């Protein structure tokens, strides 16, 4: 057990960030690319080393994976409550280390080609390093507050990277939106932490998650409005997770976040940061499961299922390929959430948990791959829109193949990675909740359909005339594609249930053939439909659009959620709350203060007449005064 090497994993990117950030102007762009990649390569190797040793050398004792914690006090609140900083090594954090490392490394390599010639090359790598640091910190966190700290930091890295093209107003507003929406969700998270900290007296995951610990056993001791306070806390924490993971209705920032450079979308908004919400729920899984018999977990399941369906429907109609991918991400995140939601705790009961983590892992690979491919395409045709693409398979063979692999993976076609993880999710859902299972299977079909819709739209379909002949991307960009494609093919064969489970004990997972057949069948139907509609140029799609009419329009406009939010923020919050307050402040609060001042001046203006400087008036006042005083005295004297 060597913690110093683990601690180095986040610290190296931090050092890279500081180096590139402070000496921004002094470092040549090329060098900064190398520094970034080199730093992350070291981190990746360390992560793999850690994972290897943890899973195969020392991690297991009595058939159960142990949790190793090393921490130091960062700040004291009270005698009992404190924020610790440290690293926690357990199956999911190690798994996340691998995911974050590999995707980050690939994205950084890819960015060296993709961002070539950009003004802010160094800045870009600095931000990526900052993100990696924060994400590592997040997955290694030992307690709620530490996770919150890094949670915010990944949020800000996301903000900086979405707003990377800061001269573009749409990017600026997208960045702002992403930050504020997630911040709003984090408000819930923070309040949840406060409640949790107060009632359980600790922020430590280890103490909180112990099924025999006081936190879980005493969940019923305090209740608020009919539910245990801990349930409330978990729901609020889940809101935080839902914000980061773009669950309905806090999803609106994710499509807009596509304004960032494509590698960023791949890294942050597909593979790593957005799964932080899933990770958070998984982190607190014992609490979610045991407190109030999983009340909060049910909410997780339904929110996940709904988001998954909702996003999949919208994804069908979008024409911006990055947005399709964004909604697809949201849909898959919903999948992971629902898997967590239907999971049990012990042994095979915990299939959902394991499936969720498994899907997180495979999804990170193939979704990053999809985004990088999309980036490669965008790089070639300089447009995000499907209408500007078509027939690209001739020009970009590697991208074509890798995209196809990723699409097959996400569609759940064996033997690609997505098949295995998805299958297990559906099995878990089937065993626990039929409604959610049907939603899941339907979404699987939709997923296959929209993914192949864009696949055919980009690489087949009509032969678009290009002004500049598109060309395959350079090696720095295709290498990550190939590498991730490889992982997308073989990733499914990892026996995940051996390593990552809710009770950390490991079990044997088998493929449930009837259910798998159904899932694959639905996926193939989706692909076939897409084939019919989009393989060759035809008007079937237009006919369908006309058939659905307003429904299509609704979906195309993402059910007007952006508009609703805009209405709430711009119209209500800004114009009905903020503006009146600002006006109220100037007019009434300040007006009162100024009014007091003015009244004083006015009064003095009035009184001033008495001090006229006219001796006669003074004489009169004098006489009158003397008389009155004398009379008063006499009166007092005599009475």
């Amino acid at each position, binding site marked *: 057990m060597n913690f110093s090497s683990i601690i180095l994993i986040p610290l190296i990117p931090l050092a890279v960030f500081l180096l590139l950030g402070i000496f921004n102007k002094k470092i040549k762009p090329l060098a900064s690319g190398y520094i970034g990649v080199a730093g992350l390569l070291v981190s990746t190797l360390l992560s793999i080393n850690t994972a290897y040793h943890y899973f195969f050398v020392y991690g297991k004792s009595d058939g159960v994976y142990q949790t190793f914690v090393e921490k130091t006090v960062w700040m004291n609140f009270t005698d009992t409550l404190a924020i610790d900083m440290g690293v926690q090594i357990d199956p999911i954090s190690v798994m996340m280390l691998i995911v974050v490392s590999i995707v980050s490394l690939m994205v950084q390599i890819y960015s060296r080609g993709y961002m070539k010639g950009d003004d802010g090359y160094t800045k870009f790598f600095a931000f990526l390093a900052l993100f990696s640091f924060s994400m590592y910190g997040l997955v290694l966190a030992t307690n709620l507050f530490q996770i919150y700290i890094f949670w915010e930091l990944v949020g800000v890295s996301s903000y900086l990277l979405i707003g990377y093209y800061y001269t573009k107003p749409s990017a600026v507003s997208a960045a702002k939106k992403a930050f504020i929406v997630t911040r709003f969700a984090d408000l819930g998270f923070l309040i949840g932490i406060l409640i949790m900290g107060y009632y359980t007296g600790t922020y430590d995951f280890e103490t909180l998650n112990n099924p025999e610990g006081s936190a879980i056993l005493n969940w019923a001791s305090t209740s608020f409005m009919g539910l245990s306070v801990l349930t409330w806390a978990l729901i609020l924490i889940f809101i935080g997770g839902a914000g980061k993971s773009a669950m309905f209705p806090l999803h609106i920032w994710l499509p807009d976040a596509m304004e960032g450079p494509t590698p960023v979308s791949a890294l942050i908004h597909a593979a790593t940061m957005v799964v932080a919400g899933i990770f958070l729920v998984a982190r607190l899984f014992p609490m979610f499961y045991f407190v109030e018999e999983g009340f909060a977990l049910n909410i997780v399941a339904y929110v996940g299922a709904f988001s998954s369906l909702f996003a999949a429907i919208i994804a069908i109609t979008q024409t911006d390929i990055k947005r399709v991918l964004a909604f697809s991400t949201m849909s898959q995140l919903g999948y992971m959430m629902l898997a967590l939601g239907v999971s049990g705790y012990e042994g095979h009961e915990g299939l959902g948990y394991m499936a969720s983590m498994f899907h997180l892992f495979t999804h990170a690979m193939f979704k990053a791959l999809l985004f990088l491919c999309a980036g490669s395409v965008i790089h070639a045709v300089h447009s995000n829109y499907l209408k500007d693409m078509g027939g690209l398979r001739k020009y970009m063979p590697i991208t074509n193949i890798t995209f196809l692999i990723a699409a097959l993976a996400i569609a759940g076609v064996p033997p690609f990675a997505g098949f295995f993880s998805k299958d297990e999710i559906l099995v878990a859902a089937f065993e626990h909740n039929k409604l959610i299972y049907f939603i899941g299977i339907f979404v699987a079909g939709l997923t296959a359909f929209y993914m192949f819709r864009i696949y055919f739209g980009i690489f087949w379909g009509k032969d678009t005339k290009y002004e500049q002949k598109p060309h395959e991307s350079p090696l720095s960009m295709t290498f990550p594609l190939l590498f991730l494609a490889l992982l997308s093919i073989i990733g499914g064969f990892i026996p995940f249930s051996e390593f990552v489970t809710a009770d950390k004990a490991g079990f044997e997972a088998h493929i449930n053939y009837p259910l798998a057949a159904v899932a694959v069948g639905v996926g193939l139907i989706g692909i076939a439909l897409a084939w019919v509609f989009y393989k060759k140029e035809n008007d079937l799609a237009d006919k369908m659009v006309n058939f659905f009419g307003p429904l299509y329009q609704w979906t195309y406009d993402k059910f007007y959620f952006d508009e609703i939010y805009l209405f709430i923020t711009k119209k209500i919050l800004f114009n009905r709350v903020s503006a009146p307050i600002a006006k109220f402040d100037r007019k009434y609060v300040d007006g009162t203060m100024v009014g007091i001042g003015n009244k004083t001046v006015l009064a003095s203006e009035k009184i001033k007449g008495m001090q006229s400087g006219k001796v006669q008036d003074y004489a*009169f006042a004098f*006489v*009158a005064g003397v*008389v009155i005083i*004398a*009379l008063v005295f*006499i009166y007092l004297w005599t009475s």
Partner: protein
Amino acid sequence: MERIIFYVLAVIMIVFAIASVTSRKMLRSVIYLLFVLCGIAGIYFLIDYNFLAAIQLTVYAGGIIVLIIFSVLLVHHIEMELEIAKISKQILTSIACLLGLGLFLTTIYSYEFKVVENTLTTTTSDIGAALLSYGAGGFILPFEVISVLLLAAMIGAIIIAKGKKLTDKKDEIV
């Protein structure tokens, strides 16, 4: 006999004093004042301070009144009517003055004066001796001070009244 004279004088004084402070013609006002001053001189005669009465007549009636008349003639047209204070102010002032008077009178009447019956006559030489002696009851120092004061006032009056040339006027205002 003296009683009657006193009452006559008192009435004259009060009536003309009132006339003097209410008259709207400047010159008349001054002349009424002259009557009052003469009445006061009469009182002095009555209580047997002849020297004082004479001084009163010469300095006040003769000097000051003339001075005032001159100034009136210099700065006023004879016909000019004076501005009068607001009625409310007049009433208020009268009330205050009447109350004050009442106060005075009650105080005076509630006090037992230890009057010493006498028929002494004070001669001019007594006064002169008192003014110029420096022993007990002598007033030589104040007398000298007053004379210096008078001199200073005289010089001051001349300088002020002399004024400056009109061309310098602007500078003065500034």
